[in-house]
């Protein structure tokens, strides 16, 4: 049963994608939407069935399906093989259910776009690739999904390809993730060489029993980390994600918030046994995650584009996940991944609905007071915002963030004998980040939905859009209750789910941690209300002139730095070398040879040549001279006669 359902899970969106692509232009928008939703819906149903099947089985049970051997050759083998374990269950549920909701939303959102078939084809293909990614039991197979989602992301960011900025953003996203992919490929090569296979189980076993040298483990972990960082838009690869908001909003919700960008988190969680062995890499991951979450939050605080705020917030939240992963809180990371998928999808979709109804106005300072025009959307957005901020007890974000913070608190890195990195510092950063999260998202809420009304909203949000929104609202409010902090004991469903596959983090955090974690988001909310929310807000707009603000708004200037450091030199160099230098060199050598041989030839024949040339010239000048003699003047003729006579006589006389 499972052996059939698991391939079918991937096949149904894939088939939908193929049908949609092939029949492009022949099916109506409605039919295309239905087809895509059916494909994703089927896989959602299958994933629910599969998870029930798996969870009803033994705790360590996994569902392994080997479809066919991919490469079997001396010293190496790779298969097209899938595996469903408890980590993948979480992921397929998130991917298919959130994916389904977003698809349903998109049917309405995209219904009058001429390229709808391309859109849904790419979206369903994305779901299929993502499922391949999360289900693959072989790293090479995972890599197919890994690149596949990148390709779909490229197609969807550049969906409205008429605008050069969009396609540029798409290419940027693809290039930056591709760099990570190259690093990931290196990591895979290293592991494959060391372990002789890329089957995840085999690799992890080889690492665990010391078959792989520690330096190789560190290197591999580093390479894979780079790949994950690029995919998840962490420092130093963060710049592509804000630009990726050029795509349609459902794309941003599905790919650039809920699923694809979390692939890095999933990969590291999947390979946690490898990373446990690589302590420096873990520390690096935690530090980068912490930095990213701070940086993302700070940048989000000064953005004025609604979708960009959400994009930076995504980067920041992914930073949380990496922080958690770096600290070994695998479960927390996955938990946050799940809740983040819910509330960030909700936020994006709501933002999309708002943007559609305000005639594609994305600047939050031109919006305002939308609370009255669209109360439902306002409520949904506020729900999402609360979840993102982690408003205590009622939202999912609170629980997952709490889990991360408690996991981070306990972490401890022994990098060297003298130098250790305590989790407390990282915890502090995380807490600061939580405060900033509440601040920036409620800044957005207060500016957009409260205050003076800026734009006029028209139309109604269609039913097809509201259903997914309400579902996501429920999920982002209640999705967290399945895992309570240790301090409130009763419910630990999520960790119970993952305990067999992912080691639980240490749970001996002091009780006041939860309290602090609850107060800080509320404080952020309060400050936001003071600054932007009151009837006469203190700060209507952050002064955009200040250099630091402008600096922060561009994402720490990293774009500019990269542009000057890599893009421009690359462009210049390619421009410089656009004509093949070697070609020129060789052609030039050829020309030189030709010239030399010609001159050799000439010098060989030169003597004769000069002789004949000189002779000819002499004859011609003599000719000329004779011509001069025949000048037609009688007197000269006479003179010549006399001269001749002279000479003749002289000869006669002298003889």
């Amino acid at each position, binding site marked *: 049963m499972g052996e059939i359902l698991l391939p079918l899970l991937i096949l149904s969106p894939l088939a939908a994608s193929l049908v949609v692509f092939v029949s492009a232009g022949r099916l109506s928008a409605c039919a295309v939407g239905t087809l895509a939703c059916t494909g994703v819906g089927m896989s959602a149903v299958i994933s629910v069935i599969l998870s029930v099947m798996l969870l009803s089985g033994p705790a360590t049970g996994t569902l392994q399906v080997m479809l066919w051997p*991919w490469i079997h*050759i001396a*010293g190496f083998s790779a298969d*097209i093989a899938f595996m469903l374990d408890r980590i993948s269950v979480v992921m397929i549920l998130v991917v298919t259910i959130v994916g389904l909701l977003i698809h349903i939303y998109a049917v309405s959102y995209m219904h009058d776009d001429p390229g709808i078939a391309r859109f849904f084809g790419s979206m369903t293909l994305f779901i299929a690739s993502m499922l391949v990614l999360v289900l693959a039991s072989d790293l*090479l197979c995972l890599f197919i999904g890994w690149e596949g989602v990148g390709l779909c992301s490229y197609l969807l960011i550049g969906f409205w390809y008429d605008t050069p900025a969009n396609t540029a953003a798409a290419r940027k996203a693809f290039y930056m993730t*591709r760099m990570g992919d190259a690093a990931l490929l290196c990591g895979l*090569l290293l592991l494959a060489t060391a372990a002789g296979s890329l089957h995840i189980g085999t690799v992890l076993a080889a690492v665990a029993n010391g078959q792989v040298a520690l330096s190789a483990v560190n290197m591999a972990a580093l390479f894979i980390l780079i790949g994950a960082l690029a995919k998840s838009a962490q420092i130093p690869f963060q710049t592509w994600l804000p630009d990726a908001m050029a795509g349609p909003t459902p794309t941003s919700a599905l790919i650039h918030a809920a699923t694809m960008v979390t692939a890095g988190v999933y990969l590291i969680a999947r390979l946690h046994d490898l990373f446990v062995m690589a302590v420096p890499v873990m520390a690096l991951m935690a530090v980068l995650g912490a930095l990213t979450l701070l940086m993302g939050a700070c940048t989000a605080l000064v953005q004025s584009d609604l979708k960009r705020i959400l994009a930076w917030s995504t980067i920041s939240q992914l930073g949380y996940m990496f922080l958690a992963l770096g600290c070994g809180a695998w479960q927390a990371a996955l938990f946050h991944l799940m809740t983040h998928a819910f509330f960030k999808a909700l936020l994006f979709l709501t933002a999309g609905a708002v943007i559609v109804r305000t005639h594609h106005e994305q600047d939050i300072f031109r919006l305002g007071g939308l609370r009255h025009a669209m109360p439902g959307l306002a409520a949904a957005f506020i729900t999402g915002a609360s979840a993102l901020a982690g408003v205590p007890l009622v939202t999912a974000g609170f629980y997952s963030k709490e889990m991360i913070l408690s996991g981070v608190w306990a972490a401890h890195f022994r990098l060297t004998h003298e130098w250790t990195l305590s989790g407390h510092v990282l915890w502090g950063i995380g807490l600061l980040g939580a405060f900033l999260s509440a601040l920036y998202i409620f800044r957005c809420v207060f500016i957009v939905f409260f205050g003076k009304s800026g734009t006029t909203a028209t139309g109604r949000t269609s039913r097809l859009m509201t259903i997914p929104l309400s579902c996501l609202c429920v999920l982002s409010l209640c999705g967290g209750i399945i895992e309570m902090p240790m301090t409130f004991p009763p419910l630990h469903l999520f960790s119970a789910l993952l305990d067999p596959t992912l080691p639980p983090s240490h749970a001996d955090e002091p009780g006041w941690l939860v309290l602090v974690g609850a107060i800080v988001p509320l404080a952020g909310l309060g400050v936001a209300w003071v600054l932007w929310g009151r009837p006469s807000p203190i700060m209507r707009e952050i002064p955009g002139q200040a250099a630091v603000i402008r600096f922060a708004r561009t994402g720490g200037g990293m774009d500019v730095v990269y542009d000057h450091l890599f893009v421009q030199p690359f462009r210049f160099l390619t421009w410089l*070398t656009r004509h093949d230098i070697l070609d020129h060199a060789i052609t030039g050598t050829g020309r030189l040879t030709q010239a030399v041989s010609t001159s050799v030839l000439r010098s060989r024949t030169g003597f004769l040549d000069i002789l004949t040339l000189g002779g000819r010239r002499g004859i011609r000048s003599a000719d000329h001279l004779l011509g001069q003699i025949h000048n037609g003047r009688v007197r000269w003729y006479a003179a010549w006669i006399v001269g001749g006579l002279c000479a003749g006589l002289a000869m006669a006389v002298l003889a």
Partner: protein
Amino acid sequence: MSPLPALVLLPIMGGGLAWLTERIQLHTATTSPPSRNASWWMMLATLIVETLLLAGITFGHPTRTGPWLEHFSMPWIPTMGIAVRLDLDGLSLSLIWLSLILCFLCACLATRQVTVKSGAFYFLFLMTLTGIIGTFVATDLFLFFFFWELMLVPMFVLIAVWGHEDRQRAALKFFMFTQGSGLLMLLSILGLVITHDRETGVLTFDYFALAQTPLSPTLSMLLMLGFFIAFAVKLPVVPVHVWLPDAHTQAPTAASVLLAGILLKTGGYGMIRFNVMLFPDAAIHFAPIAMGLGVVGVLYGAWLSCAQNDIKRLIAYSSISHMGFVVLGIFTGSRLGMQGAIIQMLAHGLSAGALFLIAGAIQDRLHTRDMHRIGGLWAAMPRLSASGLFFAVASLGMPGLGNFTGEFLVLLATWPVSPAIATLTTVGLVLAAIYALRMVNRVFLAAPRVDPLLLKDLPARQTAVFACVMIFLVVLGLYPQPFMIFSGPSPLSVTATTSREDHAP
């Protein structure tokens, strides 16, 4: 009776018939339109018969005694030890299949545009095919050289007569490079034969006999270099690649496809069959340099490809980059790398061939290859654009498609030899993404820049042909295992004896 001579001779005879058909038609009547394409149908019929023959060879031997599928031998010039020796193993067979598939592609998609002296075009086209197939099956070095040169002449004429604006120069460049390097190979062949004659007293050009020649390391290295340079020019390896961009750019579409799809592969085939297998020790000594050249090729080709504005030139440079992988794979010295190189050759033949066809289709419609003047084709021609996107993505090494399998295997084989080289090569993959997507963005996406009236999408039949290639690529990417078992070159040590015994008269 072995079907190999028929396999080799069929295309050229069919081509001659196609030419004759056209001549006769010209002389009799040109009134009825359906018979105007009689010579084209003749070519198609030739290809079909050839394919049937090949299918017969492929599937007609359920029980294989040795690794060599077919053998044919007939004395040619007995006093010199030259014979018509043809042998077929999995490597040859898979490359011949590739050739035929690409020829079908050209026949269906590219040759109909040839209106001037089309009969002669078909004849030369099929003559090139004969040369290629002959190269793949010849195991007599003299015969091999004969076929090697036979490929060049019709291709030269194809470029020089039916090419684009700068065709004469490109054709001359192509001819001079390949011909010059071919002479080096001839020297090496003669050197090997004479050495063999001195050592054993037997004057022969037989591949299997020559493989047993005892050689001093220096001599062996010298002879191998002669072969290597010839193959390196054909493949091409970077410092001697300069003929390729011009030739590919200026050639007519069908010739570009043949060049990129198959002619380059003869270089790879030669490296496997004659460099690594005839001179294994010298090849091992030479491997670091060759691998270095391979990496340079990967990076240099990709780099220059990033800077091109001419679509066909861009694809040509990307071919150089991909062929760098082939060199890298062949000289890793492991079976893994060689398999990777073979898969890479097959996949590149399909993807680059298809890309050239698409570029040709664009040029037929817009009469330009400049990417600055093309743009936004997706809206008007979605089928062509989608195919273009697919093959561009394939050529950037998307996992799940054939090119990735080849590249991955090559990298996997390279990593134990030198992680640094492998890491450098992955940079080539990033560059591949840059040039491929640059092309996609400029040509298919972007804002429309051309008159939409010019843009007629691919007909459904041609799309179906492209779809077949896509399926091949996907199969090669997802299920390469049968190809890898099937297409492995026969190890020499085994074959030399078994094939002798099997086919001894």
